[in-house]
């Protein structure tokens, strides 16, 4: 009896720890952003629609918005475009785009062709702003609150499910600007 007590006492917690590890494996594949709960990094970048004009992170304060990092070279961005248009139609919050290391003309053509879901798109040719946001693979989307704090981050394609399950419940109903 006593002989087995110690091995079992060691083995059982080990099984529990490894089981937790296995069950949590899917969420571990997505690297948690250290930005959540912190202010969204500042930037001042050219506006895709009119490059003389600049988009400043500070100007976006005061309302909820979804900050979406994309590029015409990015397959996942094409895949999530329908969801982005759906989000635009839902009029819950505006989409702010970050066109990451892309060609302006191609990006404009993409939006003309597929429809433009964004309230405004900032252009990040050098990729410096993307680095500040800890972006490592487009598409990535950040939910940002009126105080400018990052509340939630989606890595990879933004699907209808992620939108309804993860993002919508986090946003209080607010009058949509311009509606």
């Amino acid at each position, binding site marked *: 009896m006593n002989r087995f007590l110690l091995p079992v006492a060691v083995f059982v917690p080990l099984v529990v720890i490894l089981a937790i590890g296995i069950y949590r494996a899917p969420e571990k594949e997505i*690297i*948690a*952003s*250290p*930005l959540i709960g912190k202010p969204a990094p500042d930037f001042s970048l050219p506006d895709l629609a009119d490059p003389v004009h600049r988009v400043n992170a500070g100007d976006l304060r005061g309302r909820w918005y979804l900050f979406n990092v994309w590029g015409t070279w990015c397959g996942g961005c094409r895949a999530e475009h329908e969801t982005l248009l759906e989000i635009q139609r839902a009029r819950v919050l505006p989409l702010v785009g970050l066109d990451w*290391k892309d060609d302006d003309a191609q990006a404009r053509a993409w939006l003309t062709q597929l429809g433009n879901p964004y309230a405004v798109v900032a252009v990040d040719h*050098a*990729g*410096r702003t993307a*680095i*500040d*946001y*800890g972006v*490592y*693979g487009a598409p990535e989307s950040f939910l940002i609150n009126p105080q400018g704090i990052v509340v939630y981050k989606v890595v990879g394609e933004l699907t209808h499910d992620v939108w309804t399950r993860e993002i919508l419940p986090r946003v209080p109903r607010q009058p949509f600007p311009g509606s």
Partner: protein
Amino acid sequence: MRRTRLVSVWGALGALAVAQAALAVDPTEMPTPELEQRYLALTHELRCMQCQNESLADSPVELAADLRQEVRDMLLAGKSDAQVRAFMVARYGDFILFRPRFTARTAWLWLAPGVLLLIGALVLVRVIRQRAALLPQDDEDPRP
């Protein structure tokens, strides 16, 4: 005939190896050997977030090049190694460090091997003592 073919194969492989070294993903040179050393050390200990099992120094993807550029600029601006690491961790999290820092969350990671070794040593000592205690008894008391 066969031999010359073999030689030429080896020659081609050698040339390829040289060519590859010349086309290394990162041809950067820092202005001083000291900075070069620190740059190499840092880019080898930071993870490429896109390919995850490669360091920034080894990865050919564009994001790794951008992050190397960032490391280079920070070192040239006189930032310390710790400041470069802190910059990366603030954006990408602890995961970007191949050698995790010692924090409350990673403590078990660092301490577990030592603790397990200690438990093993204690068990070993106990087993040896028990065996040792058994042996003299057998000697003292050979058959009643």
